[in-house]
């Protein structure tokens, strides 16, 4: 019986996490419209380009999202400094990914600064999340 309850609770938690992830891009919609009146909707392909785009950091080193998270968001990455494993970015490969909006914002703040040396726009965030959610 206990096992059954745990199983049900597990399914419910999983379903809730999926729902949170699916609705994440919507949360950036109003701000994206505010930032750019031409903005229509988020695009997975723009998000994919954003993920792979390489730029030169002011410290002279080439940087990109994919540099640490690998070219395939279904794969585990590695922190370039410490070598510690980073679990896959795509929710299809990592159920816990995108399940906590506060955590998503925490990492946008950090990683946008590390890679772009500025905050990301709401459109960039929404595109990127849409890309991750589109990966099957």
């Amino acid at each position, binding site marked *: 019986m206990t096992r059954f309850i745990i199983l049900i609770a597990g399914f419910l938690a999983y379903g809730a996490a999926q729902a949170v992830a699916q609705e994440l891009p919507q949360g950036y919609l109003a701000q994206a419209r505010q930032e750019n009146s031409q903005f229509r909707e988020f695009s997975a392909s723009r998000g994919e380009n954003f993920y792979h785009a390489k730029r030169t950091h002011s410290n002279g080193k080439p940087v990109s999202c994919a540099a640490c998270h690998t070219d395939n968001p279904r794969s585990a990455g590695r922190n370039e400094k410490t070598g510690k494993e980073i679990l896959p970015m795509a929710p299809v490969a990592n159920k816990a990914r995108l399940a906590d909006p506060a955590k998503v914002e*925490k990492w946008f703040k*950090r990683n946008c600064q590390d890679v772009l040396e500025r905050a990301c726009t709401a459109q960039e965030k929404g595109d990127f999340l849409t890309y991750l959610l589109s990966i099957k």
Partner: protein
Amino acid sequence: MKRTLFVIAMFGAAPVWADGNENLASAVANPHWKTECSACHIAYPPSLLPERSWRKLMSGLVKHFGQDASLDGPTAQEITAFLVNNSADRAPNKRAKKVMGSLGPNEVPLRITETAWFVRKHDEISASVWQRPKVGSPANCAACHAGAERGDYAEHRVRIPH
């Protein structure tokens, strides 16, 4: 319950252990310290740096060894308090005292590996060992101390990868 007893037994035994076998886990671990600090590296034992080091490190998370590791205010405050309360100045273990003894009064190391204590404890490790792909750098405790995540740095359990 069994686990609690085990933990109590472990910490109860700590003072009689020799320096090399002492467990470095804090008596009461802070869950935020654990999750936040172990996101990019292992959560290093608070007792290996003095209070002044932890305060300086926690006030510079926006540029944390070249990476942005910023936290929201309340979380940062909670973790700082935990680090300070378990710092080398305050931890009751022998190793913490040795770390403190190895530092000059004005020294504020931001890396555990900069303390004279760490350097002395690892003086037999050659530069080529640190550079081995499975080690990478002296910051990668778990490469040789498999129990590092649990605070276990016992000398007889050290296995240096090839």
